[in-house]
């Protein structure tokens, strides 16, 4: 049941080459759509049926999002693919770019056809140089084969696709900061509304989808929305790429159906290293609050279940920690990340992330005070929900989660000025 959508050609001979991708059946869906001139509304319906929810982390239904753009309205429209996966623990889109770039290109052409965009960008994380090159090669190959550019496959539809390498800012994964970055500006999220579907790249209507979402499109349309939906569970259709890392034997990317048991996923990843107990799991990238290991083993990997447990599925980055990990140190590292990555425009995030980091760091270094824990409890809700983008929430979430589940470890640190583990 694994690797059926985005990683469906994994294991085959160089599937990132156009020739091979086509020999495995790639670009057939696109050809069909363009030759039959499938009505875009029909494609949107199919996407809605599939219940594909945005794989970047927010989980917004892709079909609904596409419906926000009136493809027949005059003026330019843009399609942007967000390959800036910067969430600590996430490395799933990298594998798509590496092993199946043409499926993403195909998905983007179809999406552009649906929304009426003639220009698209794939914004790739700055550290993904090799993947950037590979995707660029794929674009070049596709253009050479008449799959990109003017009058694609004689259909009269034009679509040009550009690759844009980021410069290493986490916040540029936020879709409007990403647009600013493409425009050559400092990567800072825009205030919303207006949403990008109304005022996006260069002020024009823009649809931004995650790499995994777009790469799923050709398969969904080939096999049908119903088929895709049924792979998963209620409210979480299809399969999902999980990047699982931490104290496990076989870290990596696994494409599995939504709703799979966490224990099964852990099994696929080779189980806990050295057979140690699972102490804690961050189920959806570092901004997702931590869940104690024992609890996690009872959960299934889908949007609803993880949310009910007080965290979120996010980008599907699962970080597994065993009993040798000090939660204070873990939190210090994560808080440092958000402190460094806050873009700096909103006061609560700019000032608050530094404050959180310094307090946690003091506790880690044996200079904590018991009232610091109340301070952290008090500051975090003043950051969450008070900023333009979700980075403030992302910085507050881990602190809140750690204090909720591992407060004793923090207290131990403060009292004994050393680690519990």
């Amino acid at each position: 049941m694994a690797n059926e959508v985005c990683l469906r050609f994994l294991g085959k001979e160089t599937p990132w080459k156009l020739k091979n991708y086509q020999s495995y059946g790639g670009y057939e869906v696109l050809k069909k759509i363009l030759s039959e001139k499938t009505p875009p509304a029909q494609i949107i319906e199919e996407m809605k049926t599939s219940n594909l929810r945005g794989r970047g982390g927010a989980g917004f239904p892709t079909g609904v999002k596409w419906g926000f753009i009136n493809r027949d309205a005059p003026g330019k429209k843009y399609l942007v693919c967000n390959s800036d996966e910067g969430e600590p623990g996430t490395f799933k889109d990298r594998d798509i770019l590496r092993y199946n770039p043409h499926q993403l290109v195909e998905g983007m052409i179809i999406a552009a056809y649906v929304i009426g965009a003639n220009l698209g960008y794939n914004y790739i994380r700055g550290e993904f140089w090799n993947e950037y090159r590979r995707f660029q090669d794929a674009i070049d190959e596709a253009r050479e084969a008449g799959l990109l550019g003017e009058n694609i496959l004689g259909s009269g539809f034009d679509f040009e696709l550009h690759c844009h390498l980021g410069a290493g800012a986490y916040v540029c994964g936020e879709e409007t900061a990403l647009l600013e970055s493409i425009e050559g500006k400092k990567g800072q999220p825009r205030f919303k509304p207006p949403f990008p579907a109304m005022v996006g790249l260069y002020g024009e209507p823009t649809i931004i989808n995650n790499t995994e979402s777009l790469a799923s499109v050709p398969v969904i349309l080939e096999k049908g929305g119903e088929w895709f939906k049924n792979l998963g569970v209620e409210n979480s259709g299809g399969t999902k790429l999980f990047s699982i890392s931490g104290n496990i034997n076989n870290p990596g990317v696994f494409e599995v159906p939504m709703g799979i048991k966490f224990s099964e996923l852990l099994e696929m990843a080779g189980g806990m290293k050295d057979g140690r107990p699972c102490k804690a799991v961050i189920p959806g990238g570092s901004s997702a609050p931590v869940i104690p290991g024992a609890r996690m083993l009872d959960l299934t990997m889908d949007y609803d279940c993880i949310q009910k447990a007080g965290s979120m599925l996010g980008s599907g980055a699962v970080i597994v920690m065993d009993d040798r990990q000090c939660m204070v140190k873990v939190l210090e590292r994560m808080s440092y990340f958000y402190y460094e990555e806050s873009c700096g425009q909103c006061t609560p995030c700019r000032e608050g992330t530094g404050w959180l980091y310094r307090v946690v760091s003091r506790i880690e270094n044996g200079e904590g005070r018991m009232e610091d824990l109340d301070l952290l409890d008090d500051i975090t809700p003043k950051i969450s929900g008070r900023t333009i983008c979700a980075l403030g929430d992302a910085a507050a979430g881990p602190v809140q989660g750690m204090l909720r589940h591992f407060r004793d470890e923090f207290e131990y640190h403060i009292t004994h000025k050393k680690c519990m583990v």
Partner: protein
Amino acid sequence: MSEQLVTIEIDGREVKAKAGAMLIDVADEAGIHIPRFCYHKKLSVSANCRMCLVEVEKVPRPLPACATPVNDGMKVKTQSPLAVTAQQGTMEFLLINHPLDCPICDQGGECELQDVAVGYGSDVCRYVEGKRVVADKNIGPLVATDLTRCIQCTRCVRFGAEIAGVRELGATGRGEHMQIGTYIEKSVDSELSGNIIDVCPVGSLTSKPFRFRARAWELVQRDAVAPHDSMGSNVHLHLRNGEIMRVVPKENEAVNECWLSDRDRYSYQGIYSEDRLTKPLVKKDGEWQEVDWKEALEAAANGLKAAAGGDGDQLAALVSPNSTQEEIWLAKKLLQGMGSDNIDYRLRQGDFRPGQPDRPWLGMAIAELEELDAVLIIGANPRQDQPLLGHRLRKAAMKGATITYINPLQLVLNYRSSQWVTTPAGMLEELAAVGKGLNLRRGIIAQTKAEDRHKALAASLKEAGKAAVLLGPMALAHPDASMIWGLADAVAESSGATLGLLPEAANSTGAGMICEAENNGKVRELLENPRKGYLLCNLEPSLDLHDPALAGKAFDKAEFVVALSAFRGDSLDAAADVQLPLATFGETSGTFVNAAGDWQSFAGAAKPLGEARPGWKILRVLGNVLEISGFDQDDCGQVLAEIEESLAGRKPENKVKVDVNEERWMPAEGMARIGDVPIYAADPLVRRASALQETVHHVEAAVRINAETAKGLGLEEGGQALVSQGDGQATLPVVIDETVPANCARVQSALAGTEKLGAAFGAVTLTKA
């Protein structure tokens, strides 16, 4: 924005508002205060400071009032626990890294952060970690930085991008490391740069000349009108013990909005310059001697009387267009009392042929400039000449107006425009060709050929909803100014555009109304046929006149020259026989009439330095000493009442009666001088404003020519050139400047070193020196 009205509720009060208006504006209108830092009514909404968070019913998170449009039935709470907790939270975050050392901060006492902290801050700081420190940057002589105090509201950045039209400041770095700066160290050079001090809500950007010289609570605030360009910007003077410590804008939406040009903001420093004339002086045996007022006035009266010798025509008065209405009026009256009509204010004009407007003006209200759809501007650089008029034109351009310039210089502009750069003589051809594009045939228009661009411009002027043809100072200084008026009038009339002037000085328009150009003296004639006695008001002969060489000779020949001046200077020392110390900006009451014909009166605020006296008082007493009737006014208001009565509601107008077939005085061949006036050399006061003179806009006299012209003459950058105009000569350094058209030499006026040269615009020869 929709005009539809909606009803919302703020803190239980019902408020009507335009649908889509931002909540913060609606609350402000209703007098409900919501704290804010990044929001500024003239700047785009950035919604990043998070201070204006309020509760909106049915929304779980607090929303920023600055970025939340109102809709019908919306219920807003600005004081609810959710709102107040959010506001207090933001306040605490803002203060954790802010140095809480208000007593040593220049902004202390007039600081938005300080004020809001009183309402929303806690008395205890829970932040015990180290605070952020940011190295200060040197951004030039006008604005001091104290970047550790910055709260990252980005108002200064948005001001640069949106109002000044130059992105000089930006934010670099992320998160806590975010800093305001220029990236690569440079000065902030916008002509409106001082406004970033006003928009900065904290003490991060402050006035460099004013810094640490006074505390806000020691200052007394008085209103005044800026004395330089024809905008008539409204200002507040901040005084301590009768001394002007700084100048800040006074909001007037119809004039300067809430902005002020740097020239108007910093020129006050000139008031206290070292060469300020503080005592009456009389020249005795070639030596200047300080005397008391009585002796000086008697010497002035006797000298003028003797020079006239019973023939009033032997007297002439040259008054600066920066003088007040009252000064000009009394000077005129004084001359009339002595039998002379020879008064003029058009000091930088070279062509006085008849038919030019008697009382020229902008032709519209200032705010109307931004409503224009098509504008043709001839011989002007509004960004430098009248920076805030330039700002209005920029606004028009940003709204999509097509703006075309015909200039003898390529301008550095901050908006999209067409610039037709040509020689001074060529300006007439360009303008005539536009006339041709409008199918006109008269005069020189018939001989020109309209190219596509001329036809396109003609069409755009004709088709525009609102169009204007505007002349500027370089058009007036042109040897064929009357022809330019004539052609511009023809183009405006036939295209339906409004004809207007961008006057150079604070009271150019008012002076025109009093002096009634056609009936009174003409500067050139008054100097070409030297009179025996001159009254000079508020000018320096070598710097403020169109043809300094001619003026120098005339004053040498004159038997007696009396000067009312705020400052001493070499050329005035040489020309005058009596110098009467004049109260200057801020020290005198009076009235200026701005470009749009708005009469703006102001009271004297600062104590005149030394024995200086307001010009109207000096002239009034001089009238008494000369025993001329009608010099009994007790205050400035009475003088103004007299002027108003005499003008009897007369309005400025741009009526042109020029035959566009006149002889052309600007030779089409040969080297032409372009003698525009640098922004900070425009009048005696600004020339002495020390901080402004340290900016990049300070220029020294030079010959600016393009590389091609230089090559042809065997000149090179850094070399010296001998500039000859008539029998006047000057040796000046050569600067290669590609903004100057071929066969032209930009030798700017009003600069030391150009005293011996002739007309600002005219034939000139260059040789290697």
